[in-house]
């Protein structure tokens, strides 16, 4: 493999490695070299090349790895999701981030908690679907959203519990209607 010829370090370390071309280099902590009037006085001849190379790379990215058009459309359509009336229940606990992993347990369900004022929604995501509980319990209509389209309605029992038999694929949110209140949980990918 010719890659070895270049002697580039592996991950992480490379930026501390020997400078490839032995050029003088501003140490970190210096100015944004190359950005703000970096001229010959900066110790390095004008680095116009970096700007040119970056621009060339930018154009390459635009050809080889652009934002997919269908994704752009989805993002444009997502405008329908803005709703200044609804309250947003923020994600206040996510076991993926906030819980310590248990040794040997690889398929622990994902536990999520969303909070909006006095209302808490606990959700457990398993391979079978979602188990949730609205606290304090109250009559509510809940739907699970997967995009701007209307969601699938879910029934809530008198303890505030609800079940969804299918794990969400892709982003999801729950929309709760309780009294005159509309609450949506923060969009998340399960």
């Amino acid at each position: 493999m010719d890659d070895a010829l270049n002697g580039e370090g592996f991950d992480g370390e490379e930026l501390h490695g020997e400078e490839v071309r032995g050029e003088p280099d501003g140490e970190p902590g210096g100015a944004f070299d190359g950005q703000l009037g970096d001229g010959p006085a900066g110790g390095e001849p004008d680095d116009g090349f970096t700007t040119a190379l970056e621009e060339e790379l930018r154009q390459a990215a635009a050809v080889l790895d652009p934002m997919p058009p269908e994704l752009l459309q989805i993002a444009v359509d997502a405008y329908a999701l803005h709703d200044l009336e609804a309250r947003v229940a923020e994600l206040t606990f996510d076991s993926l981030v906030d819980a310590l992993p248990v040794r040997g347990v690889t398929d622990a369900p994902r536990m999520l908690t969303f909070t909006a004022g006095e209302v808490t929604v606990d959700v457990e995501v398993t391979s079978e679907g979602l188990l949730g509980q609205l606290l304090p319990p109250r009559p509510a209509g809940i739907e699970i959203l997967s995009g701007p389209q209307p969601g699938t309605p879910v029934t809530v029992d008198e303890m505030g519990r609800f079940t969804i038999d299918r794990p969400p694929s892709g982003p999801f949110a729950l929309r709760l209607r309780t009294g005159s209140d509309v609450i949506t949980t923060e969009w998340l990918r399960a």
Partner: protein
Amino acid sequence: MRTGTLPSAAYDDVSYTRGGTVDRTDVGALVQSAADGDAAAWKAIVEGLGPLVWSVVRAHRLSEADAHEVSQTVWFRFAQHLGRLREPDKAGAWLARTARHECLKVIRNQRRLTLTDDPLLLDRVSEEGVPEQALLEQEEAAARNERVRRLWQEFEELGERCRQLLRVLIASPPPSYQEVSAALGIAVGSIGPLRQRCLRRLRARLESRGTA
């Protein structure tokens, strides 16, 4: 009402000061307009900052499917928070940071479960030829494609930190350093020097292959 697209520093030869020429000051106004019901303003935001979000997810080497879902999640959440952002003029940084957090969750989840596929970007060279063009133009285009392909390959083979930094920097329109900082969790002050190093490295690789 302002509903144009975000200005782009893009593709002329004029060198730009990072984050200066890309006038992000309009972002705050666009966010406000969108929150007030202006769909065209929303579209302008998506077009101006969508590529940044995409760059962030790609910088984290998510698979195609994960990259799509994370991007969607970010935009859905942004729509949800529209009108509630504390600093609407920093919407770019908000998006970049949210994308980063979601990417890190995906990566964490993958470690917990199994490894997934790697994106095979090199197979995705645009093959959308323009069939009716003159042969000469086609040859020129082929040579250009080849150079672009090689450049991309060298870029992909850079060390992980450089690849990641550059992938975000080359979003179009170019992101501000504040946005890059939010996208990667690195200090604004270190971006310039790192950028220099990484581009120098890339150039060295190209030169050693006689591609420069």
